[in-house]
Each structure stands twice: as structure tokens, then as C-alpha cells.
């Protein structure tokens, strides 16, 4: 479904940003014409135009099996240089927010966020995704669904799509109907690659045998990882905002069995926190969920 009013608003906002007169009705009319033209030319079955990209609600399976979890994906495809945000957006921006409209008997789980990227501008670092990203969401249809032939998944999204230069808020309404069958669901070959690729970018539990510790000094958290082998590259993404200074460099010291990563505390962190939670990314497809208690460094000779 196309939210034409919204696209009109977005285009008008953007035209204004490009130096057009704010009250130029003709330009907004032009924008509306453009929006309708674009939608007619590019809209396929489920692809919904959003500001500077498209969004599609897809399913991993071909049908719903009552009583069995299935996965849906919110697949964003963005124009070059535009991005959306991770659950913690970093210094600016905000993550997409989804309100599900589901048949009775179906409940939605939490979004599984792929490992984000650092989006850097001078003095400011955001966390998010450029180009293409899918947010996977588990759905839990209970046994009562067996009485139905199909079930509709509706999603109302509030979005913020940004470039380094500007941000444009928007909304999208998505819908997907799947048949209900009693036999075990088969994967949909059309979405198999998308789900496989996306799962590779989801952070994993820390491997067994690793020891991850976090100590703190007055200005820094120090994350020490003993992985049994040296590690030369790591980036930490804090799950909660206002804990670490996003734009500060993360100094990595390689050690024989892992590494030590120094994270500057955020100026907004005025009260102590008990645990450091986030994602530790070693490479594009190797990232781990960190949830570690913080202990005081016994004697910290100044900043590490």
C-alpha cells in the first residue's frame, strides 16, 4: 500500500530543504505528480515505496503452521548514501518503530537486529544500516489458528531515513497474507537468500571458552576478551544510549589471547551502570552479544 499523503509531505519537505520556497504550492503539486508517477512505474506486488528506498514485508515460509514459530522480514532497500538506524541509533536519529496488526492467535516477538555499522560525520557517530537490510521478526501463531484458511500480518511503521545531510521522517503500512496449513511449513525459495544472508549478520552468543570482562575507571570502560587467540580488529556497539561516547575512538590493544578495547564513557552517563550490554563486531559476519557485569579496576593509574 502506498501512503501517498506521506510521500507528498516528504517530497515537499525535501524540496524545501533544497532551497525551494516553503509555500510553493506548485512545487508540492509537482512532487505529488512525481510520487504518483514513481509509484505507478516501480511498485510491484508487495514493494512499498518509502523515502529514498523501498520496504517489503516478506515471510521465510510459504505458509503458517499453527503452533509453530515463523519468521517475517522487514526488507529495506535504500538509495545510495541513505540509511536507517539500529535499535540504539547513536548520537542522532531514531530506529524504525513497528506496530503489528495481527490476527487473534498470533503474537509478534522482538526484532532481531543485524550488527550495525558506524555512520560517521565530524564529531558525531550514528549506528545503522546503508543499502539493504532486513529486520527479522519471529511470529508465534497458536493452535487456534488451525480453524482459519489464511492469516494477515499488518505492520504500521514509523521511519526515519537519513543521509549525512538530512533526515526525512515517514510512515509505511505493510501487509502480508499467508495461507494456514497443518503440515510443516516449507521455506519460500524467493526469500531464502535474504533470510540466509541476514542471519549471517545477526550477532551470536559469545563462543564457549571465551572470557569477556569489563572494568571501569572514571572515564573509561575496558573490555578484555580472552578468545584463546590474538584478535586485531573489534568494534563495540552499546545497546543502551548514553553509556559510551559514540564518536570517541575505540582503542584496541592486541593481546596474545585476545584483545583489550578501551571505550570512553559518555558525558551523559551520570549514574553507575551494573552491566555493559551491546554487540562486539570482529568482522562483517562475526559479531557477538555482550552482556557482562562491570567491575571496578582495582588501581587505575589514570586513563588507560
Amino acid at each position, binding site marked *: 500500500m502506498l501512503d501517498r499523503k506521506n510521500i507528498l509531505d516528504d517530497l515537499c*519537505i525535501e524540496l*524545501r*530543504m533544497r532551497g525551494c520556497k516553503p509555500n510553493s504550492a506548485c512545487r508540492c503539486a509537482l512532487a505529488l505528480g512525481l510520487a504518483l508517477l514513481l509509484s505507478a512505474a516501480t511498485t510491484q506486488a508487495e514493494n512499498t515505496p518509502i523515502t529514498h528506498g523501498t520496504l517489503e514485508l516478506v515471510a521465510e515460509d510459504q505458509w503458517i503452521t499453527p503452533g509453530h514459530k515463523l519468521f517475517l522480514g522487514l526488507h529495506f532497500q535504500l538509495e545510495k548514501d541513505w540509511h536507517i538506524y539500529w535499535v540504539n541509533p547513536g*548520537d*542522532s*536519529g*531514531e530506529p524504525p518503530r513497528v506496530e503489528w496488526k495481527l490476527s487473534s492467535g498470533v503474537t509478534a516477538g522482538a526484532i532481531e537486529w543485524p550488527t550495525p555499522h558506524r555512520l560517521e*560525520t*565530524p*564529531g*558525531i557517530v*550514528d549506528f545503522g544500516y546503508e543499502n539493504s537490510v532486513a529486520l527479522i521478526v519471529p511470529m508465534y501463531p497458536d493452535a487456534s489458528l488451525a480453524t482459519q484458511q489464511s492469516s494477515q500480518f499488518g505492520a504500521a511503521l*514509523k521511519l*526515519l531515513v*537519513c543521509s*549525512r*545531510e*538530512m*533526515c*526525512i*521522517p515517514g510512515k509505511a503500512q505493510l501487509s502480508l497474507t499467508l495461507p494456514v496449513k497443518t503440515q510443516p511449513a516449507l521455506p519460500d525459495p524467493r526469500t531464502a537468500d535474504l533470510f540466509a544472508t541476514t542471519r549471517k549478520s545477526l550477532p551470536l552468543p559469545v563462543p564457549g571458552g571465551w572470557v569477556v570482562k569489563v572494568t571501569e575507571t572514571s*572515564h573509561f570502560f575496558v573490555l578484555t576478551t580472552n578468545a584463546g587467540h590474538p584478535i586485531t580488529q573489534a568494534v563495540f556497539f552499546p545497546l543502551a*544510549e*548514553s553509556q559510551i*561516547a559514540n*564518536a*570517541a*575512538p575505540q*582503542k584496541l590493544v592486541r593481546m596474545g589471547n585476545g584483545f583489550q578495547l578501551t571505550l*570512553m564513557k559518555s*558525558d*551523559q*552517563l*551520570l549514574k553507575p551502570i551494573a552491566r555493559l550490554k551491546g554487540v562486539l563486531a570482529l568482522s562483517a559476519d562475526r559479531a557477538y552479544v555482550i552482556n557482562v557485569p562491570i567491575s571496578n579496576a582495582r588501581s587505575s593509574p589514570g*586513563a588507560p
Partner: protein
Amino acid sequence: MKRAILNVMVAAGVLCMASVLSATKVGDAAPDFTGTASNGKTVHLADYRGKYVVLEWHNNGCPYVGKHYKSSNMQRLQKQWTSQGVVWLTILSSAPGKQGYVTASEENDYLAKMQAAPTAALLDPSGQIGHLYDAKTSPQMIVINRQGVVIYDGAIDDKPTTDLNDVPGATNYVSRALEEAMAGKPVETAATRPYGCSVKYGD
């Protein structure tokens, strides 16, 4: 040789960290600045010692700023607090060519059209004031007390969205900080993530 290069790199990294660390924080003395207002007047922060001062980072193309101006929330706050003797400085740190950069006359037109009522709107295209306070977003808000100490730094309120409907139910951190400070109480929420658009500094 390699080690020497590494040492230089580490030193550079430490310097870089130090510069981030030196940004103004809640509890610090607010660094003084001199700014040129859109009305042509020169503003010295130090001249306002003895008064509460609110700093508001502004970018007229940012939808988060738009939320607070289209709803008249920002103008209402400006009028409410300046009528009680608070100095309200709107600061525009967008670099020339970037979103939110305006000339003095464009800003004066905007202030008139929006019926905005800050004490002054300061043009900061070099980003000097923005960097002095490590302003990251518009609309980031800073409150300075009568003694010239930063007592609040962060978001305007607790609803980090662009939705005008979120204004009425929000807790306004700026008003709360001013109310608490004027009542002689400590500011309970003194630092928050300043939600919004990144400040469009020059490269």
C-alpha cells in the same frame, strides 16, 4: 621504526580522546563565547552571569526541530522562560552549504514567521560555539545557572520522535531543570541523549 610510527599513532589517538574529553559537561563552568546575533548585535555569554541561560541548537530543515516549531512548543517555551528573566539563545551551527545554514536576514524572516521569541539567534557557521559545547544534534538543549555552571545538557524532552502528537504528553527536561534549579533543588535529570538531527558542521 614501526614502533615509532605506532607510538605516534597512539599519541594521536590519546590527543583525539582528550579533545573529546574536554567537551563541556554538566557541572562544568559554561565556557564563554562571543556570538553574532541575526539582529546584528554581539552577544557575550559572560554578560548574562547572574541569569539563567538556555542554549538551543537549531536547524530549520531538521524534522525534529520542525516538530517543536510547528507545534509552537519551542516558541511557547521561549516566551514562558524569557518572561521570567531567563536568557534564551538559539544557536545555528550549520556550515555554509549545509542544511540549516541561513543568512541573518533569512533567520530574521524565520523568527518573525514562526513567532519565535528567543533573546537572540546566534549565527555560528564556523561551528565554534557548537564545538565548544560539543553540540551533537538539533534541537540539543543546554541550561546554565546563575553562577555560570551547566546544569542540564541533552534532549528537549523524553519523546525522541518527529511526531507532533508526542509534544503534549512529553516531559520537558528544560522546563523541569529550570523549575528545579529555581526552587533551589538539584536537577534530577541533568544529562540525556540529545535526540535529533546531527549538527551540520563544516568538514
